[in-house]
């Protein structure tokens, strides 16, 4: 039995708690939240032991692993506490608000021999795993360009104020939404060497961005574009898409399916033919022990449990990999602040770049 503490009882925390408590090899020994009401209801109705802060919990009960699902700005200190006590850590995404700190935490955890994982659940989506497999075997030849997109209906009017609407706390479309497709790019293509043309645009929010666009450049010569909005009502729920264009074909994927076009020159691939192929989620998804809101959420927790118990050594979504994505988030923020770099020089000398609060040009 792995003894687990869950910290943070927001939307993600509650859902992690429900899934992990149902895991046959896990005992939830503590739940932690700073606010009284949700904690109090849980304590009263579920028999779980509750604590107002992580240190109190770690002092009171023996814990093997902790699941951290607090607002992002609290991640770093909590991860430090856990590592200091030799506790394995699953942390929600993004890992921290500073890539340097994420790298440091990754190295601290590695020195302590601890298992780490960050909640980039898309890497556990059958369709996106299939894309990874196809790219790794060179199914579409040399990839020249990728497109990573995410759209959804989160902020549809100028209203509402939670930590998710404040950039300083790790809210905003970049950290909350774009982090997911960007992490898929990190998985597929590694760390970019440069970014350009970044736009962090506001549609409705006053204190943060609602849309993210930009270009990423890789050492291999490949480039990628990111296009994300959380203010798009035409999508019923968050929808993430990946497109890869290669010399021998094309891959398009969303959570439901993978569509692959293979040219005649493409290498032979079992289960795939020349021309268009479609693989559906029903054939790409592994069953899980407990389903709440998508197999990937269960699968990522199971992966963490198996790694903590030593059943699996190959780790997906460790801190080091999340630090790569955190760095991309930083680069995009810096690039957006700079604004456009190539202007219409023929018509007039470049005007001074006006630096908007969020990198928008007025």
């Amino acid at each position, binding site marked *: 039995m792995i003894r687990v503490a869950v910290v943070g009882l*927001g*939307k993600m925390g*509650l*859902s992690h*708690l*429900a*899934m992990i*408590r*149902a895991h046959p090899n896990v005992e939830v020994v503590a739940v932690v939240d700073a606010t*009284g*009401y*949700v904690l*109090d*209801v*849980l304590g*009263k*109705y*579920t*028999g*779980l032991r509750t604590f107002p802060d992580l240190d109190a919990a770690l002092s009171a009960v023996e814990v093997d692993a902790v699941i951290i699902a607090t607002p992002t700005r609290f991640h770093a200190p909590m991860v430090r506490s856990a590592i200091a006590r030799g506790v394995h850590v699953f942390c929600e995404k993004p890992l921290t608000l500073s890539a340097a700190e994420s790298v440091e935490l990754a190295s601290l955890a590695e020195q302590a021999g601890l298992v780490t994982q960050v909640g980039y659940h898309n890497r556990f989506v059958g369709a996106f795993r299939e894309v990874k497999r196809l790219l790794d075997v060179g199914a579409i030849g040399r990839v020249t360009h990728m497109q990573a997109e995410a759209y959804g*209906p*989160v*902020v549809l009017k100028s*209203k*509402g*104020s*939670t930590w*998710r*609407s404040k950039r300083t706390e790790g809210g905003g479309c970049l950290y909350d939404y774009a982090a997911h497709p960007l992490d898929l790019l990190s998985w597929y293509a590694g760390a970019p060497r440069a970014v350009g043309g970044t736009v962090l645009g506001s549609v409705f929010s006053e204190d943060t961005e609602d849309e993210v666009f930009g270009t990423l450049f890789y050492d291999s010569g490949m480039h990628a574009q990111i296009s994300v909005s959380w203010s798009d009502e035409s999508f*019923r*729920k968050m*929808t993430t898409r990946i497109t890869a264009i290669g010399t021998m074909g094309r891959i398009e994927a*969303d959570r*439901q*399916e993978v569509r692959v076009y293979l040219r005649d020159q493409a290498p032979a691939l079992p289960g795939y033919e020349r021309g268009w192929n479609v693989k*559906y*989620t*029903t*054939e790409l998804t592994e*069953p*899980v*022990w*407990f*389903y*709440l*809101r998508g*197999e990937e959420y*269960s699968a990522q927790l199971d992966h963490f449990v198996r790694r903590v118990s030593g059943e699996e050594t190959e780790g997906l979504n460790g801190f080091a990999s999340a630090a790569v994505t955190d760095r991309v988030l930083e680069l995009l923020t810096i690039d957006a602040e700079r604004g456009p770099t190539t202007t219409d020089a023929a018509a007039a000398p470049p005007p001074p770049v006006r630096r908007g609060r969020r990198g928008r040009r007025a």
Partner: protein
Amino acid sequence: MDRLLFGDNQFFGVNHMSEEKARAQAMRFQEIEAVIEVLDAAYDEGITTFMCTTHDRIAQVAEHVRANPDRYPDFVFSPGMPYAHKYADAVTEAGMLGALKRFMPEEGLVNALVRGGKSVATKDVEGIITLLVDAEMAMFRGLRTPVIWLQNVVVDLLLGLGFVEAFNIFDRHVRERYGAEPGFITMNLPMLLDTLEAAGIHNPIVCSNINKIGFRMSGGIESYTRALEERPVRAVAMSVFASGAIPPREAIEWVAAQPGVESIVFGASSRANIRSTRQLVDELMPPLTAR
């Protein structure tokens, strides 16, 4: 319960297989008349129970049925609540309490809760649950709703958390206030049946993915078959065709052979598909004799 229940996923652009198909469906059903037309086709095929969410657009369907009692003498709604996306998005936007406030008909209760801070009394939780149910049920006033469902996102969240008392509260409220039977939709049928039994909710009405290829049957087909065999249960099978992965005849033949399965809920957009499904069910799953 009827052998065949008509679902509403197809009206809202829900398709577990393809976003492209989902969009095509969403477009087709943008006008409520198109929805009513398909419901009429199902009704005229003898499928008179509409198992639906509490999406705002269902209120229009309810209004239409209320306004035309002669056209729909046998029409039955079987609503499932809550419509989860609207709550989930509200939580993202306004936080847990903000969302609760937004959907509570009486804000005073939530405010009292927050002021009370650490002491949440049992009656408060019961009050919140029952008020939320009443708010969702308002659109069905005057219509027949013999079975009222709790949606799987909520059932499975409560199930995982071990918040069993909430099932009892829902069960009591639905029976007392609406004279209806509670139904529980779940993606974790074996675990739910164990939990409901322990909570004293016997022979429950449940709805779950039950299909030949085990698609979204958490715990595996064998554990489902065992649970259906061993537990007294009235099960409604959904995702019977696993989003089209299983040919219709093969799919229904398999489900018909499962113990405890009383009904199938399915969605279709054309009279031809509705009829062929009904014919298959008539043939392979004849009406229940007394069990």
